[in-house]
C-alpha cells in the first residue's frame, strides 16, 4: 500500500468512526471497570439487534437516494396484526403462520411506499411520512391499543434458545445471547453480496449517484426502487417478529420513535441522504456507536434524560463528518 492510500485509509469516515467508538469505550471503561465484562458485548448485541436490522432497510433506501421514516409504523402493524389474530384464536398455534401474516403486512405497506415513491414520484420523505401516518392510524383504529403478550409456543421455544450464557460471578445475573443474532448476520452477508456482486445491487448505487445516468446506462431504475421499498418492508416485518419473540410483548407504539436512532446509525455509518453511498460495515459501526451511547451514557455519570439529546449530537456529528469529507459544497439551500 503506498503512502497516500494508507493515509486516506486512516482518515476515512470508517476509521474516524472506529476511533470515536474506541475513545468512548476507553473513557467508559476507565470510569466503570465493569464495562470490560463479557456481559457488555452480549448486552450490546441484544440492544443493537433491532437497530441494526432497521438500519439495513434504511441503508438500502438511502443508497437509492431516498429516506424511509415509515418502518417503525410498518413494524408495529406487522407485529400487532398477527398478535391480535392469534389472541382472538384466528391464527393457529404455529409460528410459521404468524411470520407469514407479519410478512404480508410488511409487503402491503412496502408496496404502498414503492408505488408512491417509484411510480408516482412523490418525494420519499413525504410519501413515507404519509404511509407511517396511515399505518399507525389504521392500526389503532382497527385493532385497539391494548398491549398483548400471548404468543405461539414455538416463539417461547426460540426465546429460550441461547448461543452462550454468561453468568456474572459477582451478582449472579445471567446474560444470554439469543440465537436470533444469526438473523441480522445472515441478512447482512446476503445483502453485502447482493450489493457488491449483482447487477441490481450495482444499479442501486448507480441510481443513487445519478438517476438519469443510471437510466441511460440501462438500469431499470423504477423497478429497482420499487423492489427496494418492498424488501425494506419485508425486513422490517421480520425484525418486528424478532421483537415480539425477544420482548414477549406487542403494542401499537412499541417501535415508534425508533426512526431517528436508525437514521442516525446510517448517517454516522457513512450513508448519504443524496444517495449512492453506504456500506454494511459502516452501518454496523454506526449502530455500534449509537447503541454504545444509548446504553452506556449513564456509566459516564450523565442522566438518562439526556439520551435523546445525545443521539441528536451523534447524528449532528455524523452529518458534519460526511459533509466535511465530501468537501464543502457551498451555495445550496
Amino acid at each position, binding site marked *: 500500500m503506498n503512502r497516500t492510500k494508507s493515509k486516506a485509509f486512516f482518515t476515512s469516515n470508517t476509521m474516524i468512526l472506529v476511533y470515536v467508538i474506541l475513545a468512548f469505550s476507553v473513557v467508559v471503561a476507565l470510569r466503570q471497570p465493569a464495562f470490560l465484562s463479557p456481559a457488555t458485548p452480549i448486552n450490546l448485541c441484544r440492544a443493537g439487534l433491532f437497530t441494526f436490522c432497521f438500519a439495513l432497510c434504511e441503508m438500502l433506501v438511502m443508497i437509492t437516494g431516498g429516506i424511509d421514516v415509515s418502518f417503525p409504523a410498518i413494524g408495529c402493524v406487522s407485529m400487532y396484526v398477527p398478535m391480535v389474530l392469534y389472541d382472538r384464536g384466528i391464527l393457529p398455534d404455529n409460528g410459521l403462520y404468524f411470520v407469514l401474516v407479519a410478512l404480508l403486512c410488511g409487503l402491503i405497506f412496502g408496496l404502498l411506499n414503492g408505488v408512491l415513491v417509484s411510480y408516482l414520484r*412523490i418525494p420519499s420523505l413525504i410519501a413515507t411520512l*404519509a404511509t407511517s401516518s396511515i399505518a399507525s392510524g389504521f392500526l389503532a383504529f382497527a385493532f385497539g391499543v391494548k398491549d398483548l403478550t400471548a404468543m405461539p409456543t414455538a416463539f417461547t421455544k426460540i426465546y429460550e434458545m441461547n448461543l452462550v450464557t454468561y453468568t456474572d460471578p459477582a451478582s449472579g445475573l445471567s446474560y444470554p445471547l439469543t440465537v436470533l443474532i444469526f438473523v441480522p448476520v445472515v441478512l447482512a452477508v446476503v445483502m453485502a453480496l447482493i450489493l457488491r456482486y449483482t447487477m441490481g445491487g450495482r444499479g442501486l448505487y448507480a441510481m443513487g449517484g445519478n438517476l438519469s445516468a443510471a437510466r441511460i446506462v440501462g438500469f431499470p431504475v423504477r423497478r429497482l426502487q420499487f423492489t427496494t421499498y418492498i424488501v425494506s418492508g419485508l425486513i422490517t416485518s421480520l425484525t418486528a417478529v424478532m421483537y415480539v419473540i425477544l420482548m414477549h410483548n406487542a403494542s401499537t407504539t412499541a417501535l415508534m420513535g425508533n426512526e431517528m436512532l436508525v437514521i442516525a446509525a446510517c448517517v454516522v455509518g457513512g450513508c448519504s441522504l443524496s444517495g449512492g453511498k453506504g456500506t454494511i460495515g459502516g452501518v454496523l459501526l454506526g449502530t455500534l456507536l449509537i447503541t454504545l451511547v444509548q446504553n452506556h451514557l449513564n456509566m459516564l455519570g450523565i442522566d438518562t434524560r439526556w439520551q435523546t439529546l445525545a443521539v441528536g449530537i451523534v447524528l449532528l456529528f455524523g452529518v458534519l463528518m460526511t459533509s466535511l469529507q465530501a468537501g464543502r459544497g457551498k451555495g445550496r439551500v
Partner: protein
Amino acid sequence: MKNPLARNKQVGTLIALMALVCVLMLIFCPGSYFTAKNAKSMLFQFPEYGILAFGMMLCMIAGGIDLSLVGIMNLSGLTAALILLALIPEGTEASAEFTAVALIVSSVAALLVGALCGLFNGFLIGYFGIPAMLVTLCSLQLFTGLVYGITGGPAVTGMCDAFKEIANGTIAGTFVPYVLPIFVIVLLVVAFILHKTKLGREIYYLGTNRKASVFSGINTLKTSMLTYMTSGILGGVSGILITSHLNAAKSSNGTSYTLLTILIVVLGGVHPDGGKGDVVGVTLSVLLMQMISNAFTLLHISQDVKNFANGALLILVLVCVMLIRKVEEKKKAQQ
C-alpha cells in the same frame, strides 16, 4: 413567471373543497356544525398550527423543508414557561404591570430561542450545503432532546393565569380570541416578506433554480439563514400559543403537527421541489383543514382515524399534483 390562471385554479379548488365540507356537514350533522359555539371553537384552534404551516411554507418555497418546527415550538414554549415561572413562581400573585412585563420578557425570549434555532438550521444548510431534510431532522432530535433533558420528562406547569389567557382568552366584550389577530399579523408579515421584499424574491429564486440563483449573485448563505430564522421565529410564536393553550411545556407536544403542516402546505399549492406557492393558498388550506378536523370531532371520529385520513389526504393531493404536472409537461412537449 407566475401563472395567474394556475393560482386561481388552486384557490378555486380549495374553496370548492370547503364548500363540499359544508354540504357534507349540512347533511350529516347540521345541528352542531353551523352554530356560533362551533365557529368560536374553530377560531381558537387553527392559529396554533397555521402559524407553523407558514414557517414550513417559507422553507418549502426555498426548496427545503423544516422538520424541526415542532422541536423549535416545544423548546421556545419551554423557554417562555421557565422564564415566566422564574419571574412569577407558581401560586404567587403579581401586580398587573409586573405580569405584563413578565409576559413580554418571556415571549421575546421564546421568539429569540426560535430565531437562534432557525439560524442554526440555516447556517448548516447554507454553509455546508447539507440537505435541509437531514439538517432539520437532526436539529429536531437536538431540540426535542434539550426539552426532554431540561424537563426530565414530565410537563412544566403552573404558569400564571395571564399566560393562559393568550391562547384561551377572548378580546374583552367580543368572541374574538387573541390568537386570531396574532394569526392575521403573522399572515400579513409573511405575505409582506414574500411579495414585497428582496428576501422574498430571493426565496422564490432559490427554490426555482438553486444553481442559477448562485450565479446571479444571490448570497445563498444569507438567504437560507434568514429563511430558516423566520421559520424559527414562527415556530417560537406557535410555541408560546401551544404552551399557553395546554398550560404545559413538554417535549411531546404537537408531534402530529409535522405531517399536518406538510399536508397544509402541499394542499395550499406549494410544490415540495420549491419555487411555487403563496400565502393565499396556504391560508385557505389552513382553514380547510380546520373545517375538516372540526367535522371529524363532531362526528366522534377518533384521533387515530384523523391521522389515517391526514396521511391518505396527503398522498391523494400529491398524486394529483404529480399527475397535473405530467399532463402539463406533455402539453409543453407537444407545443
